[in-house]
């Protein structure tokens, strides 16, 4: 008899077991010191080695069971439980390790990160093909995030170097987060205001299709650093020539060039999807709609918006995620944002500061991406669900 094996779950479990043999965390005396690695079984406190091992073996076993609802539910619960266990180990051991040292701190090491990867695979794997509706699926997907944020707010992660870096920069963190959101969301807003009409124009005026897409495609091929650099000279010049603009904050470095560059980057997905949204409406559908006596407004309400809007929004979704990433780079030209921490950390040789900048950027991308995915799925009529990619 051959055993059927669900590969994703099996893979996650095997990676998780492997992770237990790698250094779980690093103990550092201060923020730039090289750390001392601790293996999981050598941790001074926390769940015993046998606990995660048993859990992973049980998960591995579920991979060989037929996909019944009970097995599915077990996979979902056990995957989350495994992640909670790893976080608990990090928190408990860290607290004991840093206690005797004045500037002591711990950083997660390869073992923990690999365990996090394993947890991600297990949780995503448990959701794959599962017959679960959107709100619940979304909740299960963000549960790990809620767990981490909750532990952080409850002071459970205070021994972590990255949390200490955060504690020292709390005020700046909030303002940089605000700047980051401001730059990326404003850029996407601007790109939507420009890109959607551009896409519509390219659709309505066929002879403009090539120049429009040639233009936005070309913008996309310029590396982001180069585009930021290119903005500096002309904007500095403009700012010198027009004092009024200087008053408004336009200069060669800072927000203005970042906004412009990120807006330009965000254009392609938005323009392309605005075009694709309209292209998805067959001409016969418009013709029959008019022929049945729809007014201009009814045609939009019953035909154009339901078909084109979800596709257009997918473009906005791609652009937003992209813009959040690009904004991190914009810190290089003094625009601020979470990228500032990353470059500061690079400068100071403090890897935990880099992580402190990177983690919220990832969290932001994931949250906004998921949020927009939910919005798009709600706005997509039942007959068009096939256009959804996830």
């Amino acid at each position, binding site marked *: 008899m051959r055993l059927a094996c669900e590969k994703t779950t099996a893979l996650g479990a095997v990676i998780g077991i492997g992770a237990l043999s790698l250094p779980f965390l690093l103990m550092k005396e201060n923020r730039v010191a090289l750390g001392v690695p601790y293996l999981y079984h050598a941790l001074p406190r926390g769940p015993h080695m046998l606990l995660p091992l048993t859990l992973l073996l049980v998960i591995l076993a579920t991979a060989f069971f037929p996909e019944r609802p009970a097995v599915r539910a077990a996979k979902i619960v056990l995957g989350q439980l495994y992640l909670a266990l790893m976080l608990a180990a990090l928190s408990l051991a860290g607290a004991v390790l840093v206690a005797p040292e004045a500037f002591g701190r711990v950083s997660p090491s390869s073992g923990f990160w690999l365990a996090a990867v394993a947890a991600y695979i297990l949780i995503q794997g448990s959701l794959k093909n599962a017959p679960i509706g959107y709100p619940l699926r979304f909740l299960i997907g963000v549960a790990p995030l809620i767990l981490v944020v909750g532990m952080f707010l409850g002071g459970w992660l205070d021994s972590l170097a990255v949390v200490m870096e955060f504690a020292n920069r709390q005020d700046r963190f909030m303002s940089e987060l605000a700047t980051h959101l401001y730059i990326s969301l404003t850029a996407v807003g601007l790109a939507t205001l420009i890109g959607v009409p551009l896409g519509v124009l390219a659709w309505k005026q066929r002879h403009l299709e090539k120049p429009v897409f040639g233009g936005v495609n070309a913008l996309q091929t310029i590396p982001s650093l180069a585009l930021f650099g290119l903005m500096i000279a002309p904007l500095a010049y403009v700012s010198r020539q027009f004092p009024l603009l200087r008053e408004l904050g336009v200069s060669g470095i800072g927000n203005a060039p970042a906004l412009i560059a990120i807006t330009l980057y965000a254009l392609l997905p938005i323009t392309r999807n605005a075009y694709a949204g309209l292209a998805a409406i*067959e*001409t*016969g*559908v*418009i*013709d*029959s*709609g*008019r*022929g*049945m*006596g*729809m*007014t201009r407004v*009814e045609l939009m309400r*019953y*035909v154009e918006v*339901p*078909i084109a809007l979800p596709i257009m929004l997918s473009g906005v979704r791609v652009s937003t995620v992209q813009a959040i990433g690009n904004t991190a780079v914009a810190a290089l030209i003094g625009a601020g944002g979470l990228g500032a921490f990353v470059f500061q950390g690079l400068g100071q040789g403090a890897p935990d500061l880099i992580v402190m900048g990177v983690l919220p950027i990832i969290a932001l991308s994931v949250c906004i991406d998921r949020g927009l995915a939910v919005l798009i799925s709600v706005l997509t*009529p*039942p*007959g*068009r669900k*096939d256009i959804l990619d996830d």
Partner: protein
Amino acid sequence: MIKFEHVVKDYNGVTAVDDISLELPAGKICVFIGPSGCGKTTSLRLINRMIEPSSGTIRLDGTPVSKIKAEELRRGIGYVIQSVGLLPHMSVRENIGIVPRLLGWDKQKRDDRADALLELIGLAPAVYRDKLPHELSGGEAQRVGVARALAADPPVLLMDEPFGAVDPLGREVLQREFLSLNRELKKTVVFVTHDLDEAIRLGDRIVLMREGKVVQDDIPERILGAPRNEFVREFVGADRALKRLSCFTVESCMHHAASLDLSALEDGRPPEGVQVNGTGTLWIVDAGSVLVGMCRRSEGKWSDVREVRAAELGVNTLSSLRDALSRLLGRGLKAVPVLSEDNRLIGEVRLTDIEAVNQSDGYV
């Protein structure tokens, strides 16, 4: 009734419709046909103001359509196009309910109407009402398109090559269904096609167009039998005599058939003294008058009785003479039996009858 009065449509100097005057009778199927670019689709779209004429008037029951608000006019006219144009995000039921929805019917009434129409076009409501357009075959989608056009019970239907995208077999089925449907509903139908066979099969009237002008506006028999000029003659083709036979049903020249009950056979042959008609064909039927065999008499002798499969050999009263002819020639017979739906013998059509129709008046 739809009336065209000196209607002209110019597109930047190109005349698509050139001074057309026509009267399309109510309750009839009128087919616009002609080579591409002849203005047939433009003429159709002028009726529901999808296109506005450059000059001239189109009247719907006496009222110029230009006096009716375009949207209101269109809601009162069914519209079916080749690509069907079902809204991809709406179920079959919602699609059929669009015009009623625009007219402000409540949901219950719309749904009831959709179910009734699905029933009418031969798609089981329970199976089809919740399907999405991409789950339908080409023929089913086109049926739903017709149902949608009928939803608000408009007196007029405009159909622009509605069956053009369906495969030939499916097209014939759709044509037959539509024909019997409209016999019941008696809508005034304006039908555009470039397929002459379709025009002959469906049309009560055929308007043959060329370069924006009406070349001949006539009943199908006369379009085929009395082409007005060289263009019409060429358009209907060298096989127009054959095509013309499509205009006539078997019913129109059916004769009494000589038949004999199976039990009356003696040693597998008809007894002497049984009368046959000029074709020399004797049909053998069973106790329920169902056709089971045939035999022929020539030079004073009976041939052996042959068993026949009624459904393969026979035609029905609504079959075309073209159909009957093809069976006659295919079997090498002098007559084909005309059967009822349950294969009972009700008459026969003879080769000589078909020849007579072919030479009947009107044929030049």
